[in-house]
């Protein structure tokens, strides 16, 4: 009985790019949060009951604050409501949830930290906390709106891809790896499923240990409702079928244990 839904306080809110917002909130969740975990954020609109699972972008343990960078998915959506909150406003949250990235495995290794689209934000806290021999951050965007770029540059060697070629490599994160002739023996990645599928293939072909953070529609966010499952290679011990719960067993999985 140690978890609860709490009222977090908005500390700041800013728009980073078209439809991409950054919000710092003061919350008890900051105390135990790890990179790659998420929080459930709730609207105060009674017609929108379900929590929005939002990845953690930065953790300020001392200050008791978390940063979330999220995309507004449309008009009249819950995320649009979040984007209108101002410093001092309250927002109900539950968290931290999920397992997070096993960042301790990076010690002494050559690492790719890969993010795409709205999967970019959780890579920032990972980059900040991870110590390794070679920290190569490879992030993909649609266009020149390369949000969080300056923060990434302070935390590793940054490679960018853009779909329209306006910044860095034209194409996706895999194109950026090829163009820059990069290699690694450990990968962490978060992004859209096609991107994760390509990274998983690459990792498995080259026998690289790879952790991917998955996304799916959720309801409870804590592992009870079985809405957000992914296919697992082996029979899962909890579900007793070839399904794992993204919210509880993930969102981060070893690439070889799941099928995309």
């Amino acid at each position, binding site marked *: 009985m140690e978890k609860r839904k709490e009222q977090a306080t908005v500390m700041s809110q800013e728009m980073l790019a078209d439809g991409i917002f950054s919000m710092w909130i003061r919350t008890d969740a900051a105390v135990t949060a790890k990179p790659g975990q998420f929080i459930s954020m709730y609207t105060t609109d009674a017609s929108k009951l379900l929590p929005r699972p939002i990845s953690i972008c930065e953790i300020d343990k001392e200050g008791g604050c978390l940063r979330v960078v999220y995309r507004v998915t449309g008009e009249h959506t819950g995320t649009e409501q979040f984007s209108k909150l101002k410093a001092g406003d309250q927002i109900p949250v539950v968290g931290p949830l999920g397992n997070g990235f096993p960042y301790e495995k990076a010690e002494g290794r050559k690492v790719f930290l890969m993010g795409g689209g709205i999967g970019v934000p959780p890579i920032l806290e990972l980059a900040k906390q991870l110590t390794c021999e070679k920290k190569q951050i490879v992030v993909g965007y649609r266009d020149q709106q390369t949000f969080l770029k300056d923060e990434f540059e302070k935390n590793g060697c940054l490679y960018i891809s853009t779909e329209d070629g306006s910044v860095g490599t034209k194409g996706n994160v895999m194109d950026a790896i090829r163009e820059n002739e990069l290699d690694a023996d450990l990968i962490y990645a978060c992004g859209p499923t096609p991107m994760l599928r390509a990274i998983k293939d690459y990792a498995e072909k080259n026998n690289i240990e790879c952790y991917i953070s998955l996304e799916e529609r*959720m309801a409870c966010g804590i592992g*009870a409702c079985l809405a957000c499952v992914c296919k697992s290679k082996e029979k899962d011990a909890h579900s007793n079928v070839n399904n794992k719960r993204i919210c509880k067993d993930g969102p981060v999985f070893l690439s070889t244990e799941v099928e995309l």
Partner: protein
Amino acid sequence: MDMRVNIAGVEWKNPVTVASGTFGSGAEYADFVDLNQLGAVTTKGVANVPWKGNSTPRVAEVYGGMMNAIGLQNPGIDLFCERDIPFLKQFDTKIIVNVCGHAPEEYLEVVERLADEPIDMMEINISCPNVNAGFLAFGQDAHHVEKLTGQIKKIAKQPIIMKLTPNVTDITEIAKAAEAGGADAVSLINTLTGMKIDVNRRTFAVANKTGGVSGPAVHPIAVRMVYQAAQAVQIPIIGMGGICTAEDALEFILAGASAVSVGTANFHNPRATLDVIEGIEAYMKKYGFESVKDMVGIVR
């Protein structure tokens, strides 16, 4: 003030349980809620063998609620008996195991397997709209409901609650069929079959195309059906459908339910069950009711 209710000979410490499928077997919510406080825990449906459920996306949000098509993913009765029942036995609450199946033999196998387990009641899900067994859900045909209820009653050692679907023309016919088959109680409503289309992707919002709608949006429909069922049968009714607050729960009780289940609200407020229990107590104090059973069905 007496919060206890007696459902088919089983005494619950208060009239509040959870709706099957919204609470797992309690383990995840035990981090948020002291399970000892609940009248009963109703588990997610369990079948004779593990079921992998439907493809994702399995859920979508709708105005004032949600739609789900999980497809009754469950670990199968063997692992359930080994893990979930012992977990729940640690708590001072009643255990209601929800049973699902594609065919009568599958239900009967689970009921038989549970006969000697330390559980208090069984709830038979004859109404899940998401499982394609090549025919209508059992719960949509009064004759099938009576027959299956009778078959289950022959082998069950615990009281049987038949869980009814609202996706029928006349709920009273189905409730009466369950009673005629020997059901000890009925619970209603299960989810209403719905459809949501994602206009941006131009596809169905859930992979199963249709899903079960739940949440406060369905509450008035559920209250109406519980009221109708209460006029038609003598056996106790467990009312559910969109309960978020004590007032929502009290509507069911006043309409004729002896107990209530909190479902979708758990996703919005993990301690919704406790808020409902506390709110019912406050209401009883305010209006001077000595016992929950004094409120059952008094609005006629």
